[in-house]
């Protein structure tokens, strides 16, 4: 790598870091805080209850994820690789939301660097730098780069997988790069199984190099076997804890949404055209997409094809949750970069030669401006009272108490209490008491049921924002 390229990467990484520090100390009460709370609670429980990576637990004891009671709070979704990283950081600093967010920030900085390195294998330094720059600066990407979610870690692992696999293909006698590829493929798939879709470019690269000879290539088969085996073992292991496995069928094609008008409208207009790329970035993306093809571009198209297959298979998941589009950011950034480069190279005999670059810069500025407009609200803490109430619970209630912290099933409230319990009232209050849960904390003071309990039961703490109630069988039936 040339010196100036190193300098460019440093500048981009610095910009990326600077942007990601925006509101880095916000509590887990921002956008998609429920998923962040679930993830953070696994790390916190490693610290509180012992490091058991093969039996991760979160705070939620309710049956809301799959209808089964989950008193042991099993959390069997992804293998907790990312949660372990947060746990390791917390071993040094103690439980701290900002530190967890910084772990993600560092992960995405690594992604920025590896995106540059991967693209540099196929394209010019300008396209590589622009790809890394867009990945570093698109407001949607910036927000999710400081969330406590496994998605960014999966993206980093995938980019590292691509890089090391390309290096391996350059010299397939090199076991180090093959080993690293296997490691990062594992980390990607274990941290978020949808990474399997994004292994398609690896298949393309292998086929491109070995053609039909791939069937006899032992190293490739080794790669496939060692990549899939840990994941399969994890899935088999999970089956022993069915109460900890959330339903995922609804992520596939809930409401038969796939290929309906709403499917396209949500993914194309709302997500790509509004939230992630905005209309201007979407235009740059399409310009990049239809730019003159080169053989190298096939790798990028294979990336895009992975994204499309993923969108189609996990149709309702992608429509429902905007964080499901985290894995496609690198692909979008690459095509935006190609589109920008094309505009910079546009020549005109009629107008000034700077018009192409000027249009590109205008499109980029509007991508940031409109993107920030969409994402700014994601940082907001719309219910600060859950943080306040959570702290009060942590102060006032016994450490081993389990609590009911209802927030429509959203675990972010429960997380603030630093207790295990229930984010939803999924059984009768009597049953809660029978099962040993006698504290209820609520921020919904206008709810008549809560008002009734507050009138008749023992109040542990109360302000204008919340109430902490000690339930007893004598008080819950009164009106």
């Amino acid at each position, binding site marked *: 790598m040339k010196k100036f390229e190193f300098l460019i990467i440093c500048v981009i990484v610095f910009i990326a870091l600077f942007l990601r520090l925006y509101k880095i100390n916000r509590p887990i009460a921002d956008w998609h805080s429920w998923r962040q709370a679930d993830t953070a609670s696994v790390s916190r429980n490693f610290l509180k209850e012992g490091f058991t990576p093969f039996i991760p637990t979160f705070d939620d004891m309710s049956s809301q994820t799959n209808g089964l009671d989950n008193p042991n709070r099993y959390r069997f979704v992804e293998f907790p690789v990312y949660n372990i990283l947060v746990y390791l950081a917390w071993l040094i600093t103690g439980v701290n939301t900002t530190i967890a967010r910084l772990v993600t920030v560092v992960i995405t900085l690594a992604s920025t660097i590896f995106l540059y390195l991967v693209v540099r294998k196929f394209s010019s330094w300008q396209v590589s730098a622009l790809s890394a720059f867009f990945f570093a600066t698109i407001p949607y990407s910036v927000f999710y780069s400081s969330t406590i979610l496994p998605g960014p870690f999966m993206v980093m692992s995938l980019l590292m997988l691509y890089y090391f696999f390309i290096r391996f293909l350059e010299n397939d006698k090199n076991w180090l790069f093959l080993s690293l590829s296997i490691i990062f493929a594992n980390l990607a798939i274990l941290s978020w199984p949808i990474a399997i879709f994004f292994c398609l470019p690896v298949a393309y690269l292998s086929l491109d190099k070995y053609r039909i000879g791939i069937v006899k290539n032992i190293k490739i088969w080794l790669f496939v076997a060692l990549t899939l085996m840990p994941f399969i073992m994890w899935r088999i292991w999970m089956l022993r804890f069915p109460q900890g496995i959330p339903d995922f069928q609804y992520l596939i094609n809930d409401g038969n949404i796939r290929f309906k008008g709403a499917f396209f409208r949500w993914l194309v207009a709302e997500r790509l055209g*509004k939230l992630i790329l*905005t209309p201007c970035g979407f235009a740059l993306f399409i310009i990049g997409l*239809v730019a003159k093809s080169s053989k190298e571009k096939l790798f990028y198209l294979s990336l895009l094809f992975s994204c499309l297959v993923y969108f189609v298979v996990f149709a309702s998941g992608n429509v429902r949750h905007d964080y499901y589009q985290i894995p496609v950011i690198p692909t979008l950034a690459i095509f935006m970069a190609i589109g920008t480069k094309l505009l910079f190279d546009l020549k005109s005999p009629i107008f000034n030669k700077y*018009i192409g670059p000027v249009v590109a810069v205008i499109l980029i500025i509007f991508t940031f401006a409109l993107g920030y*407009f969409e994402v700014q609200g994601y940082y907001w803490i719309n219910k600060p009272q859950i943080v306040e109430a959570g702290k009060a619970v942590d102060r006032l209630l016994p450490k081993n108490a389990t609590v009911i912290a209802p927030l429509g099933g959203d675990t972010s409230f429960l997380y603030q209490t630093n207790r295990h319990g229930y984010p939803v009232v999924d059984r009768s209050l009597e049953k809660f008491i029978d099962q040993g849960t006698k504290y209820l904390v609520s921020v919904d003071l206008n709810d008549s049921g809560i008002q009734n309990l507050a009138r008749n039961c023992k109040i542990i703490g109360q302000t204008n924002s919340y109430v902490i109630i000690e339930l007893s069988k004598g008080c819950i039936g009164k009106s």
Partner: protein
Amino acid sequence: MKKFEIIIIVAILALTFSLRTYKISGPVADWHSWRQADTAAVARNFVKEDFNILYPRSDSLTALNDYGLQNPNRYFINEFPLYNATVALFYKAFGVNLVLARLVSISAATIGTLFLYLFARKLFGSKIATLASIFYAANPYNIYYGRVIMPDPMFISFSIATMYFMLEWTQSKKLWLCLVTATTFASALLVKPYTVFLLIPIFYWLAINWQIKAIKNIQIYIFLICSLLPFSLWRLHVAAHPEGTFATSWLFNAGNIRFTGSFFRWLIFERLNRLIFATGGFVLFAFGAIKSHTSKNGSLIFAWLFSVVLYMTVFAKGNVNHDYYQLPIMPVGAILVSLGFFTVINNSQKYYARLINIIIAVSLLVISFAFGWFEVRGFYNVNRPEIVTAGERADILLPKDAVILAPYNDDPSFLYQTNRYGYTQIDKPLGEYFSEGIKYVVSVDLADPPIQKLTADCKIIEKTDKYAIIEMSPDCTQ
């Protein structure tokens, strides 16, 4: 022109016309019905009162001007009422019927499509012209605003015709073409003064074709005089009757909105991207814009686009507030979408890459139509049908010469349904209205306390759970 091409053109024109007949008989109670009601009232009053094109009158006595002047004659002296007069001619022949008013707009839009085809064909050939005119014909936003009872469809069609005749004139330098161009331009200018921005592409084209010799060409001056004189005279007439104008000063930069974040967000994101070109079309539009300036003929489109952007910047608040203000982008936008479409397709000659590009371009076009329809379909909804019912009943029950109060938040579309003159809001004590000889109130806002008091105290001519027609008396308006 070959036979096949003529068939294509006829098919596109038929498409333009037929798509705009969707809900053609709907009442003036759909999207932007307030502006439609004023326009339709002027046409109806040409038939009901005197057909004096210099003194168009609406139904509303509520003054709209910037100067706080009363408007007892209900003058509506803003745009020159060319559209309204055309509608009135049909009304004279066939009777007052909203379908006729919409048909005038639809016909204007259809003629506009024809000129768009001719214009684009002359610059880029029939392939690009065909797609541009198909996009113009079938774009949902343009379909809706191609059938409204507003002067805008006529204004846009005159603008496109001007651009086409300007091309012919520039090429041939014939005086009669100069005069035809001036006539269409003058007509467009009279119908909507925003046409003045069209001078930018016109003079750009004259400058790059005739170069410096243009200033010595007498035709330039004939064009300017013929096109600007009628407009100047009309503006003098408008200035003489300020009470009949509507407030326009806010259209420029009310709230200092120009160049703020919301200005860009509204115009680029909400309007161009979401409503008009609908995501997929916006990408093709951007492609076309980027591509256009790379050729001489394309640069005219670029200059035209620049003039529209300048118009949006000057009339910043008007454009942010009203989506129909963006109608001037449609012809230039349709051409740019078409240019973008073929740029995408032709970007690669390799078989598989070209196939992918075709799929992408067609997908973007389909997305544009589908998402555009998703945005526009609600425009046709009549959200408050009770204003139509109440208006029809008032027309039956009240004396023909009665002047009435039809409060509807200053929106004349309710008053229009009653087929009476009157006020569109109550902004002074009812006793004062009564002393002016106004004794009828028609209301669809029965939860409003003053209306409830009236229905309790005054004589009820008719009342349902949706509306009330009330006759006031001195006693009950105390």
